[in-house]
Structures are given as C-alpha cells and as structure tokens.
C-alpha cells in the first residue's frame, strides 16, 4: 500500500512572507525555486489580499497553477534561531524550468533537517571523534586539533604524498565556488597534494579529456538551442529521468518545433518512449547498439557524412587544424589529434563494418547520418545538438569514444551556433574554482589502488562515499576498513592517555600500515563508518552558495535557514583545518611550513567566495548575483552594464577554440581508432557471465540517495535497489517480482530486488547505481583507461535468488514505466 502523508491542508504563505532565490541543489539543470519563510505562529488566508499569490485560495486552482504547493514542498525549519514555516516551490519566472519541479527538487523542503517535523534527523549536528570505542560528540576545537596534529605529524615525518584526499569538485549542495575554492586552496596551494581523487572516480582528472584537448569545452551551448534545432542526437543519456526539466522545458519544445531525435543506448529508456509521444514515432530513431560499441558507430556516421559531402567545408577550413598531426599519441593522449584528413585515416569505417560491430542495421546508421547532416531540400544545412553523458563517459575507451563523437559535431560545424552544440549533459551542477592542479600530473595517480597497496597514512574525505560510488568497491572496502580498524584499535588501546600519547599511538598504527580517516559530510556515511574524526558540514541554503548549470548559468542560491546543529559550510571547515595546521606546525618549529597555511581568516562563505572566484572574476559579487535572481548570468561573465552582469549565451560563437590552450585557436579532430574493449579484464568477464550488468540512474533518486535513504516517499517505492530484468529471464531463474537477488562475479557481490521490465534485451539487467542497500560498484572490475577514467558501465555477472519477496517488496508497483496514453 503506497505511502501517504495524510496531509489534508497546508499553511498558506502570507503576502508578506520572506522570499529567497533558490537554485535546486541536485542535478546539473539547476531549476529555479522560490523559498518562502514566515513566523511559525502566523499564516496567510485564502482571500486574494491574504496570500502570496493574490488569488482566491478558497477555489480549486487550475492545472499548471502558480498557487499550489505539495506537502513535500513544506517544512518547519530554524532561521536565525527561530522556528519558521518554509515552502520551497518551483519558480515560474525562471527560464530554466518555467515553474516545473522534478521529483527530486520538489522535495527540497521535506529533505531539510527539522527537529519539529522530524525530517532528516540523520544529519550530523556535531563533530565526532573515535574515543572509548564509539564516536563521541565533541567540540570543533577538539576535533580539528586531532585532525591537524595527526596530519601534520604524517606529512612532516613523511611527505604530502602520505596525505590522500577524496573531494567533490562540483557545484550544488556540497560544492559550489565557495567550497571548491576552500578545499582547493588547502590541498593545492597550502599543500601540493598529489594523491587526490574526485567524488565519483578513482583519480583527480577530467571526465572528458579528449573534447578539451580538441579545443572544445564540454558545456558550450545554451539550453534554448534545443528549442530551435533540427535534430537532437543523444548518446548514453536518459534526460527525461536525469535532467528532467531540461528535457521537458527545452527538448520537448524542440520536438514541437519539428526536431528529430536520435538516441544511442543499448536500452530503451523512458526518454526514448516519451520522445515518441512528443515528437512522433517517425521522428525518433533508437540505435540500440551492443554495449561499448559507440565509437564504431560514430566513426561510421562520420565516414558517411564525409563521403557524401555533408560537411561544413568553410567551418573546417577556417576553424579547424589543417596540417596533419597536431598532437601525437602518447602516455597522456590516448589518441593523436589533428586535421580531419588525419583523423579520417584512422576513423574510416563503413556502414556495414559498424553494423557488424554494433549490432544495428546499416540503414539505420545511414539514417542517423542523414538526420544529423544531410542538407535540407532547399540546400540549407541542418542544425544538430549533440548531448552525451555517463553511457560513454563511464564507458568503453572514454578518450577515443568522446573524441569520435565530437568529430561529428566539428565536421558539420555544429558548435558555437544557434541550434547547435556538442555538450555533456552533466550530473551535478558545476562550481569549480581552484588553484592549479598541474602538480597532480597526467595520467594522475590511481588513488584507490594507491590505498589498496597500503600506501598513504591519512585520508581526508569531503562529501564522498566510495562505499557506494567507486569501481572495484568490494576490495576497496575490505582494505579501507582493515587499515582504519588498525587505527581504531590503537586509539582504543591508548584510552586514558594524553593527547600526545593518543597521537603517538595513531602514528604508530599508521606506520604499521594503518590509515587515519577524517570524513567531512552532512551525514554519517558508509565510508564514514571507518572515520576517526567526523566533521559535520551544512548544505546549500543553510549557507549561500554559487554554482553554474549545464548551460553555464551562474546563480546565487540564498541561505534561508540555519546550518543544522553545530554544522558549518565546508569552506569554513577547510579554513578551520588550515588554521589548526598553522598552529600545530608552528608549535613543532616548522614556521616556514606554517606560513603556507595563512590566509583563511574568513568569517563567512562570502569571504571564501571573494578570496577565490571573485579574484578571477572581479565583476561578480554576491550583491550583483542576488540582483540577477534565478535567471542569473551565463558564464563567462564579460562585464557589468546598466546594473546587470553581462554573460555569454554560447561559447565559440566566433569560430575560435581555446580549451586546449593552442595559440592558433583551431579545433582538432581525434584519430579515434576502434580497438574493442580497452580496459583490462572486460573481454574475459563478458565471456564468463550471462548477464550484462548495466548501471543506470532513476529520476526518483538523487545520486547515492544520501538524503533519500531517509525519505519515506522514496524508500516506499524502492525499498531495495531495483534490478530490472526481462520477464523471461526472471522465469528462467525462478524469480518473481520483488524477490531479492544477488549478482556475483570475480570482483565481488552485490544485491538488489528483481523488477520485470519487458523492454529490456534478454541477458541484460539495469541496476540502479550507487544504492546504499546494494552497491553496483562491488561487481565492477578495476579497469580504467590510460588517464584513469573508470569503465563502470561494463560489468558482467551471474544472478541468483537470495530470498522470496518481503512483505514490503511484495506490496509495491511492478508495472512498466512507460505511460500508456
């Protein structure tokens, strides 16, 4: 029986409620919301002069009304020490979402911590230190002193290479320009930490090296380009689920204006099904390729376009490199880059060759090429927006595959112009502003393997949970736990000792192979179970936070409530670590080293913003961003005029390309040579197991469910991670809907819940990524590309039943996801 909130009325927002700009802190799209707060003992009333909307609320409101909010959009939170009513609802005036709310963002209010309504009581309120066999709540001074003493001892007795850092690099809830700057300043300026990794992958690296090396930054269009294009070419992405209001508010208008849709995905997704409804079946082409074969498909499409002369010859002549090889293939470049002719010598693939490799009809590949590039009957060129995401970013041969896709956009001149673009769709929002990471090197250190090999002594973790979101997770977890348990045991044995004695005991354990773990997070995460110090951070809207979305739209999401308990913004936690490092280093006579930790005397997140982002972008201040509201300004900001920040609608409008740093500003093509499975172990694993274990996302969950794991509406729908299977495969394995199963291979084991999905191919399953009750990463092998990009997507395993459906799983809906209209 479905979860119901049993809410039959909500307090009415009074006309004089405080109004705050909010950018949804979940996905890359960054929908605009408005937060309204007002004193707890009051509310508005239904007469038009008594509520924020100025309408008669004693009447039923029409569809798409501005004057309704769902129970999930309401809560009671603390503001300046007082309990207040809170409503967070979609902003009809934001150009990103035009009043649409997603199943994620429209629950922001409900997912705030509240001692009054009891929501999100999992949030950390105080620092915790491992002491007396448990985590003891303590003060910031106590916790930061221990962090600094152990860290300083390890990096001065050894080197900064003994400090391993896992840190977010994104915008949105935990990131933003404030927090990426502060962590970057600490680890890349005060220190030169080389053994760093990012929240979702085992190294500190770009996910899209090749497009950057070709000169093209990966977020180059404006969302409005979807509305005026002729073709949307989507690869390895499922925007209806994961960039919901980009799809509904920009791609669907494109379909209504006549755009065709090409989807490259082994699986029939909801995006494909919905596009058939919105665009008409005849205007949708689904290329259901064999997993991991994208590059061969792209090369064939490029070849067909080139051979038919459907290229943009002027653009190629004026904006792309002409002289053969520009960048040779080497350790840092998994393919050579240069002119179109140079690339074609490697990329040339016939329709028939690609059809054989990819398992789709040659005629369909030709059709895709036509929809992308065949001139219209009047001779004018077609416009095409190309969009891609994890299907190839976390796929086979990342560098060459993305390069092969970008080749198509370059050859047809589909970048920098209205109705075009070649962009990743994105996961989180962006908010990267850090000192140079050049010292990290390329290829970067494979940090997970570094830790597994027993290296490193201190691990600082910032809003990452590798228990749920890394490859080879089974082995990583075993080793991380064993090494951190050594330090816990040493602390336990030193009980009753002085601070100096406890630090000595910790350092001895580290020298014996142990790992001292500091976890900065908003909740006590799974990897946080290994921590010795846990530092409580707050989220966006408990602090002011700036980020940009997938069309580089920069907004200030305003603070409307207090940080929970004694939690703090990450930037101020980083400052606290730096200040304690300075003090501790000075106390042990390392004055010069201590001086490197000066410059963190920030009282607020705005101070961190001014110290970092504003120094590089002096036009941009909180005050000016506040005035720009939920529509913000598209980066790069190029000026300030008439009281407004002046932005950039799309990049490369002048036909010059600079992301690679070349003086000639010419874009490069990629010699994307197909070589089958690039990462070690994939071919053998595929041959050994029946099922391809595709890891997928669902609109209902935000990332690894860090908040949703305590949201009743969400957990009621999927009490266990779904493993979608073809019904005939379920019958063969004796599985009924809701049965618990496990997926097994040489890398490890994970578990989930069987969900019949008739649209899946046989012998494939679609398992949700990053679930707390079953990590798909457990069964993914350690294979990465030359630049340490993980191939999460290619994993094969055997499936067996664990148990019959539970009372809970038996009661949920197991129907197909596609709407029947």
């Amino acid at each position, binding site marked *: 029986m*479905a979860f119901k909130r049993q809410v039959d009325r909500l307090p009415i927002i009074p006309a004089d409620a405080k109004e705050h700009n909010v950018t949804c802190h979940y996905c890359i799209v960054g929908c605009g919301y408005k937060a309204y707060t007002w004193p707890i003992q009051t509310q508005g009333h*239904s007469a038009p002069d008594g509520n924020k909307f100025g309408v008669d609320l004693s009447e039923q409101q029409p569809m798409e*009304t501005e004057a*309704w909010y769902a129970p999930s959009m*309401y809560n009671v939170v603390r503001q300046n020490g007082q309990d207040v009513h809170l409503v967070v609802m979609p902003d009809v005036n934001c150009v990103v979402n035009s009043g649409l709310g997603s*199943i994620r963002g429209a629950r922001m209010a409900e997912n705030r911590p509240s001692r009054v309504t009891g929501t999100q009581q999992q949030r950390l309120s105080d620092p915790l230190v491992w002491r007396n066999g448990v985590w003891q709540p303590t003060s910031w001074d106590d916790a930061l002193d221990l962090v600094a003493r152990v860290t300083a001892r390890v990096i001065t007795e050894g080197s900064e290479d003994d400090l391993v850092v896992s840190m977010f690099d994104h915008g949105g809830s935990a990131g933003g320009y404030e927090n990426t700057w502060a962590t970057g300043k600490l680890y890349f300026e005060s220190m030169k930490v080389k053994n760093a990794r990012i929240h979702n992958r085992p190294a500190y690296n770009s996910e899209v090296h090749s497009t950057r090396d070709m000169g093209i930054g990966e977020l180059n269009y404006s969302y409005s380009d979807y509305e005026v294009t002729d073709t949307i070419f989507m690869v390895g992405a499922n925007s209806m689920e994961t960039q919901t209001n980009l799809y509904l508010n920009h791609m669907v208008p494109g379909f209504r204006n006549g755009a065709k849709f090409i989807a490259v995905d082994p699986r029939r997704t909801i995006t494909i099904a919905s596009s058939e409804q919105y665009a008409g079946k005849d205007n949708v082409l689904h290329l259901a390729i064999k997993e991991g074969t994208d590059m061969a498909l792209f090369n064939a499409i490029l070849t067909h376009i080139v051979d038919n002369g459907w290229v943009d010859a002027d653009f190629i002549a004026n904006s792309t490199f002409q002289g053969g090889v520009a960048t040779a293939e080497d350790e840092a470049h998994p393919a050579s880059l240069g002119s179109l002719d140079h690339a074609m010598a490697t990329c040339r693939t016939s329709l028939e060759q690609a059809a054989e490799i990819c398992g789709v009809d040659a005629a369909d590949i030709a059709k895709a090429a036509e929809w992308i590039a065949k001139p219209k009957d009047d001779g004018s060129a077609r416009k095409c927006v190309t969009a891609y995401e994890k299907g190839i970013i976390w796929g086979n041969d990342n560098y060459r595959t993305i390069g092969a896709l970008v080749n198509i956009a370059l050859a047809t001149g589909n970048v920098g112009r209205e109705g075009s673009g070649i962009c990743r769709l994105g996961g989180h929002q962006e908010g990267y502003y850090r000192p140079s990471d050049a010292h990290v090197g390329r290829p970067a250190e494979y940090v997970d393997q570094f830790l597994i090999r027993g290296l490193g002594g201190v691990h600082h973790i910032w809003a990452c949970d590798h228990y749920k979101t890394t490859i080879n997770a089974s082995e990583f977890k075993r080793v991380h736990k064993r090494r951190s348990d050594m330090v816990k045991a040493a602390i336990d044995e030193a009980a009753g000792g002085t601070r100096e004695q406890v630090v000595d005991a910790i350092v001895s354990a580290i020298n014996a192979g142990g790992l001292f773990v500091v976890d900065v997070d908003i909740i006590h995460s799974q990897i946080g179970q290994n921590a010795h110090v846990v530092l409580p951070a707050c989220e966006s809207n408990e602090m002011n936070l700036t980020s940009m979305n997938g069309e580089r739209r920069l907004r200030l999401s305003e603070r409307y409530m207090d940080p929970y308990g004694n939690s703090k913004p990450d930037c101020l936690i980083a400052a606290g670590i730096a200040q304690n490092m300075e003090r501790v280093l000075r106390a042990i006579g390392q004055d010069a080293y201590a001086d490197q930790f000066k410059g963190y005397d920030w009282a607020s997140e705005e101070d961190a913003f001014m110290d970092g982002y504003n120094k590089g972008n002096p036009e941009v201040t909180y005050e000016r961003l506040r005035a720009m509201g939920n529509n913000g300004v598209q980066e790069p900001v190029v000026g300030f005029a008439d009281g407004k920040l002046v932005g950039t609608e799309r990049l490369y409008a002048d036909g010059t390309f600079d992301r690679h740093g070349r003086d000639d500003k010419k874009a490069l093509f990629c010699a994307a040579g197909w070589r089958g499975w690039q990462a070690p172990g994939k071919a053998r694993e595929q041959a050994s197991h029946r099922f391809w274990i595709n890891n997928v996302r669902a609109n209902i969950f935000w990332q690894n469910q860090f908040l949703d794991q305590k949201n009743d509406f969400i957990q009621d729908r999927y009490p266990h991670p779904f493993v979608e299977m073809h019904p005939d495969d379920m019958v063969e394995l004796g599985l009924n809907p809701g049965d618990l199963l496990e997926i097994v291979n040489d890398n490890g084991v994970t578990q989930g819940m069987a969900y019949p999905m008739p649209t899946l191919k046989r012998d494939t399953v679609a398992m949700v990524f990053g679930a707390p009750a079953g990590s798909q990463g457990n069964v993914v092998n350690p294979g990465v590309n030359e630049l340490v990009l993980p191939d999460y997507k290619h994993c094969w395993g055997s499936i067996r039943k664990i148990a019959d459906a539970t009372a809970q799983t038996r009661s949920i809906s197991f129907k197909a996801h596609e709407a029947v209209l």
Partner: protein
Amino acid sequence: MATAGAAAATVIAPEKASAEALARVDFPQNRLANISDLAVNEPMDIAYPDADSPGVLLKLGQAVEGGVGPDGDVVAFSVLCPHKGWMLSYSAADKTLNCPGHHSRFDCETGGQQTWGHATQNLPQFMLSVDEKGDIYANGVDDLIYGRLSNVL
C-alpha cells in the same frame, strides 16, 4: 507533518481551540454510486469532496489492499496529477492512471503508487465505505489534492 494546529491557531480564541483545532478537516460523506452500477475495470467518473475535484471510481476485479465492497476490489482516486494538475487517463490494460502532460503514471492496484513520474506524492485516494444497500460512500482523502491547499475548500 504538524500542519493542522498551525492552520487554525491564529483565528481561534483560546477557549475554542481544543474544540476546533482538528487533527483533520471535516470531510463530507458523499454517496458516489451503488456497487451494482460498477462493471469490472470500467472507470466511473466521480467528484469528491466537491464538484471541482474530479476522481475515478473503479471495480478492479481483484481484491487490493484498501479495496472495499463484497470483493474487496473497489477503489477511488483523484484524477488530477499531483505533479502539475493535468487530468489523468485510465489504462484498462494495466489498471494505471496516466498523465498526458509529462508521462507520470500511478498504479490503481497499489494504492495509487507512482509507478514512474515527477510527482512528489502518490495519488490521493478517496477512502470508501459500503453500506448494507451496496451504496458506496467517500469519507476522506489520504493526501493533498492538486490545486487546493485544503482538501475541503
């Protein structure tokens, strides 16, 4: 969520508060139909708690949790999508209510659970009872109906 007290607190004198600060609003008890009016898997248009709140009355043909009537299979739901208020349409083939606007869908056999979609709540279900004559009454709603900040206006 503790919303009910807040809704009434400012307008009611202290001596009356305990009498009128209800846990839930007073829902009307409305007769919707008689069991004999229903055919299996043929939706009947209804409205509850008033004429401006359209709903559907269904005899599913198989007992479900929360179902009423002699076969335990009669249920009723709001048909305003709790995402953006579009009117849902019934698919007899799989007993779901589907939204033509943004493609959310709700399962009539699991209490209106959103099978897939954008809404942040499951579909409000009308609580039913059946008297000895077979008359079906609606007595309440288990979640907030789209387009109104009080289920009873």
